């Protein structure tokens, strides 16, 4: 990954450059450029403030996507939470990122800024176990009801692995299984 100071990217959109500079002055962020996209790395405490600033002052009306990337087995940072923002009025895109450590990652909820974050954050909690603090409706969204503390999109969650059941070990396997216990 390449870390740069503002102004170091020669062909960055001028309109985007002022916004990134404003973020840098207010929050002291770092950013990277990859394939013409700007990824701004925020500290987790300042993310809500930054989203509010971008929405109100720089017309980023739309939170296009919100998701996470798991960097397992790397622990620090383990996750990147991604906020993909779109400004309709200025026709710009900007990606904010929050790096989170392993363990019990928490983010402050963005529902107050963008209501679309409601379902997106529930999905994050389901899939990655990243807990949005202050979320108004933190029920399971996509996974089955009663799903235990397992998060399928984490890299350490096995894919499609199903132990072969026989009559002599079915009880033992059922103890470990967290789905389809029939």
């Amino acid at each position, binding site marked *: *990954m390449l870390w740069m100071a503002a102004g170091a990217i020669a062909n960055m959109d001028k309109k985007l450059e002022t916004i990134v500079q404003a973020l840098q002055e207010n929050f002291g962020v770092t950013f990277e450029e*990859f*394939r013409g*996209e700007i*990824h701004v790395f925020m500290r987790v405490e300042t993310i809500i403030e930054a989203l509010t600033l971008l929405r109100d002052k720089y017309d980023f*009306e*739309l*939170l*296009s*996507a919100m*998701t996470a*990337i*798991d*960097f397992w087995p790397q622990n620090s940072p383990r996750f990147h939470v*991604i906020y*993909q923002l779109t400004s*309709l009025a200025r*026709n710009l*895109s900007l*990606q904010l990122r929050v790096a989170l450590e392993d363990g019990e990652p928490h983010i402050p909820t963005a529902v107050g800024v*963008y*209501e*679309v974050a*409601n*379902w997106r954050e529930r999905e994050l909690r389901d899939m990655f176990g990243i807990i949005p603090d202050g979320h*108004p*409706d933190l*029920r*399971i*969204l*996509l*996974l*089955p*009801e*009663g799903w235990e503390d397992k998060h*399928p*999109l984490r*890299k350490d*969650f096995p*894919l*499609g692995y199903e132990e072969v059941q026989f009559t002599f070990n079915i009880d033992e396997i059922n103890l470990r299984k967290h789905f389809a*216990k*029939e």
Partner: protein
Amino acid sequence: MAQLEEVSIEKFKHLVSERALTGETMLLNMGPQHPSTHGVLRLLLELDGETVVNCIPDIGYLHTGIEKNMEAKTYLKAEVMSDRLDYMNNLGNNLAYCMAVEKLVELDVPERAQAIRVILAELERINSHLVWLAAFGLDLAAMSVFLYCFREREIILDIKELISGQRMMTTYIRPGGLWRDVPVEFETAVRAFLKMFPKRVDEYEALMTRNPIFLDRLVGIGILDPATALQHGVTGPMLRASGVNWDLRKVRPYTGYEQYDFNVPVRSEGDTYARYIVRIEEMRESLKIIEQALNKLPLGPVRSDNRKFVPPPRSELGVSMEALIHHFKLWTEGFPAPDGSVYQAVESPRGELGVLLAGDGGAKPRRCHWRTPSFDNLSVLPKIVKGHLVADLVAILAAVDIVLGDIDR
């Protein structure tokens, strides 16, 4: 055996009104097997008589772990999963995925492939809108519209079969171009469709647009204002029916959309009828794009000749040792993509379809996230159905145009 919890009102206390707690209003399940929920969507409704007081959508019945599966496959093999997300927009999903891969590994696509991609994406848009119109008509008890729409859809499926041998899950668009060139009959088939289809749209309109029963059911129902729409991440025809002129094909042209002359239908009413009109108009605009693309379809290769990423054509395998090696390596090991992530969005029939593709330096993606338009479009439903009748809820839901495969992934 897992402990099945009894569903109690306690769980939804913060989502329903206080009258539900005293039993004054009724809680009713709609779905997940209800025919007008377009798949397996469950809506928990709080009803006061027949009026919807609150609506709590419950999704996830069709969650198939596509994102997780894609992480376990190489970039070329993962593409087949993309067809199965939004099963009404298979080629559009292929397009979004391939464009993300091309952005990640910096592949160029030949012009002929780009033009064919545009034709196919627009045919798929018409296909998707036809299925939507069919189901929409069915939900409003217009059975014949359903049959007419499926009659025309059949022709599009035949065109897809002609080019790829498959009717739905074609995986025809590939990273770096197309699977193979279209057969000679393709142009004739598409031109025949172009000639026939405008009259058929007139037919649908004659049945529906000015029909008084239809107007009664739609006008002023489920009004969505632009500010709420943007807050909820609503995109596509639904956003344009609310008066926001935002179409990625126009504002951020991709695959050469800037060469074509077409309008973006926008309505300001924001009600169910406006959504209907916008989609009907979009079908006509798509026809314009297809015709222009077909008229100036350039000749040339349909896939990039960068052999490090794109498998060589079948004809070379028998005569070239290098081609055979590349073919073998690409389909077994795959190609490495750099450690970084790209976000690529295209305008699907339902809105902004985005792919966030992150590579890890190896042959498999670290993460492939699908920003699916139906997911966000559905999340606004509780806001717009409040105060309407249950029968109107069916109309509103039909006009949102959800695809459950797209929502649950």
